[in-house]
C-alpha cells in the first residue's frame, strides 16, 4: 500500500500531492478538449504542439534555467534567479514555443500548405532547435525526464499554474462553445453562417498548447498529448450524445489520472507512463464493449460515412 503512505506520511506527502492535484486539474481541461481533438482530427496537431516544447526546453537550458538535479523545475543556476522565478520563466518560454507552434500551424494550414505538412515541418524544426540549444547548454537535465515526465518534477507552483490554466481554459471553452462546436462540426459552412471560425480555431489551438504545457512536467513531452486524445476517443465509443460524451470523457480522464498514479505508486513506475497505460486500458475496454454492443444490436454494418 505505497499509495496510502505516499499521500499521508508527513515527511514525503509534499512530494506527491502536487502531482496528484496537477493531474486532476489537467484532466478536467483536457477531457472536453480531447472530444474536439478526436472529432476534428487534431491528434497530430496536438503531437506537433507538444514536441514544439523541445525548442522551449532548449532555450530555457541555454538561459541556465535548469538545475543540477536534472528535473525541469530544479531552479536556476548561473542566472541568479530564485527557484520559483526560474520555474515561471521556464514555463513562460515553453508555453510561448507551444502557442507559437500552434499559431504557426494554424496560419500555415490556412495558406495553402496542408495542416499535416505544416505540423511535420514545425515539429521537426522546433525539436531540432531544441536539440542544438540543449547540447550547447550542457545542462545536467536528463532527456528522460523531459520526454516522459516525472511526478517529482511537479511542485506546488505547478499546481497553482495548472489550476489557473484549467479554470481559465474551461471558462474560455465554455464562452466560445457555440462557435467552436459549429467550426468543429462544419468548418466550410460555419463561415457562411457568420461564425467567427478563425477565432474558434485559434482558441482551440491555444488551449491545446497550454493544456499540453500544463501536462508536460507530469507526463513528459511525448506522453502529454495522451490526455488530449484518449478520454474523447473512449467516450465516443460509449455514447452518441454530445452531453453524455463530455461527461464520460471527464470521468475517463479522472480515472486515468488517479488510477495511473495509484498504479505508479504501487509499482514504483513512471507516473506519466502509468497514466497513459490506464487511459489505453479504458479505451480498449470501451472499444470491446462497443463492438460487442453493435454485434448484439444488429448484424448491419455501421452506415456512418
Amino acid at each position: 500500500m505505497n499509495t496510502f503512505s505516499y499521500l499521508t506520511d508527513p515527511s514525503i506527502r509534499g512530494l506527491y500531492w502536487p502531482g496528484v492535484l496537477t493531474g486532476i486539474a489537467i484532466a478536467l481541461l483536457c477531457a472536453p478538449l480531447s472530444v474536439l481533438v478526436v472529432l476534428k482530427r487534431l491528434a497530430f496537431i496536438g503531437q506537433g504542439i507538444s514536441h514544439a516544447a523541445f525548442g522551449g526546453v532548449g532555450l530555457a537550458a541555454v538561459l541556465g534555467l535548469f538545475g543540477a538535479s536534472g528535473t525541469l523545475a530544479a531552479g536556476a543556476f548561473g542566472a541568479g534567479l530564485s527557484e520559483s522565478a526560474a520555474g515561471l520563466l521556464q514555463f513562460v518560454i515553453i508555453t510561448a514555443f507551444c502557442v507559437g507552434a500552434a499559431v504557426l500551424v494554424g496560419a500555415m494550414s490556412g495558406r495553402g500548405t496542408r495542416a499535416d505538412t505544416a505540423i511535420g515541418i514545425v515539429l521537426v524544426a522546433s525539436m531540432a532547435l531544441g536539440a542544438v540549444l540543449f547540447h550547447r547548454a550542457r545542462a545536467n537535465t536528463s532527456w528522460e525526464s523531459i520526454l516522459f515526465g516525472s511526478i517529482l518534477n511537479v511542485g506546488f507552483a505547478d499546481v497553482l499554474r495548472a489550476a489557473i490554466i484549467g479554470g481559465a481554459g474551461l471558462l474560455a471553452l465554455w464562452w466560445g462553445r457555440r462557435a467552436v462546436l459549429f467550426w468543429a462540426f462544419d468548418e466550410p459552412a460555419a463561415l457562411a453562417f457568420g461564425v467567427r471560425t478563425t477565432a474558434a480555431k485559434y482558441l482551440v489551438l491555444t488551449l491545446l498548447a497550454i493544456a499540453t504545457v500544463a501536462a508536460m512536467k507530469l507526463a513528459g513531452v511525448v506522453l502529454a498529448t495522451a490526455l488530449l486524445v484518449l478520454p474523447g476517443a473512449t467516450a465516443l465509443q460509449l455514447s452518441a450524445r454530445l452531453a453524455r460524451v463530455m461527461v464520460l470523457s471527464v470521468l475517463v480522464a479522472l480515472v486515468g489520472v488517479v488510477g495511473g498514479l495509484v498504479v505508479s505508486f504501487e509499482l514504483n513506475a513512471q507516473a506519466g507512463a502509468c497514466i497513459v497505460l490506464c487511459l489505453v486500458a479504458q479505451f480498449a475496454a470501451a472499444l470491446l464493449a462497443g463492438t460487442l454492443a453493435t454485434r448484439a444490436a444488429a448484424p448491419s454494418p455501421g452506415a456512418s460515412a
Partner: protein
Amino acid sequence: MEYRGVSFAYRNRRAADPGESRLALENVSLRVAAGQRLGILGPNGGGKSTLLKLTLGLLDAHEGEIRIFGRAPREARRERLVGYVPQRVEAELSFPITARQVVEMSATVGLPAWRGIDASTREHCRSMIELVDAAAFADAPVGRLSGGQLQRIMIARALAARPRVLLLDEPTVGIDVSGQKRFADLLVRLHDALGLTILVVSHDIRTVASGCDMIACLSRTLHAHVAPEGLTPGVLADVFRHDVAAIFGELHVHAHPADACPLPHGRGSG
C-alpha cells in the same frame, strides 16, 4: 438583391506575370426582387460558385457592387440575412449530435455565451424541421441520415437563422428524378410559407426550371437574363440553347450561324 457590374478575378500565382489573372466573372448585373426565385444556370467553371461566395461575403468583388436588402454582403452575413445550403455536406458526420442539434446550432450563432437557447428559438427550429418534412428523423444522430434527409436538415439549418434570402448550391447533384421532383415541391412550399427570396445555382436545367420563376445563364458573363414573366416553353428552349452555347462555345455558333436568336459569345470568343 442587386448585382451591379460585378467582376471578379482569381489571382493566378503560377503565371509568369504575377498581374495576370483569370477572370471568373465579368460585368455581371442582376436584380432579384424580394420574394422571387431565381435559378442560375451555367457550366462547371462558369463562375457560379464565385457568385455565391461573393453573395455570402466570403470574397470581395473587384469591380461593381452587390446589395442584399440594401446591405453589403459582409454586413448581410453578420446580420444573417442569407441562409446557405452547401453543395456537398463537408461536416464531420461522426459528430455525436442529433439532426435537431444541427439545426439549433445555426439558430444560436451570435447568442451571448451566458444565454441559453430560449423556448421561442427552440419552437422556431421545430417548425423549420417540420417545414422540410424532417420531424421523423430529427432526433436521430446526424451520421445515420441518408443523403436526402441530410439535405433537408441542411435546409432547415439555413432557415433556422431566419434569413430573408436562401442560397442553394447545386441542390440536386446525385439525386434521381423523383428526388428532384420532391425537391422542387419542397422549394415551392418554402417559398409559399416563408416568402423567401431564393437563389438556386445549378448546372442542371431541370433543377432550375422546376423550382424557379426566373433563370439567368452564367458563363463568366451573364449572357441571358430571363425577365420575370414566367418560364414558358419558349423561354425554356431559349435558356437551353444559351446553356448549350455556354458549354460548347463557338461550336454551336458555327453550326447555326443564321439562328434567329443572337447567341451570346461563348468563352472562346469572349
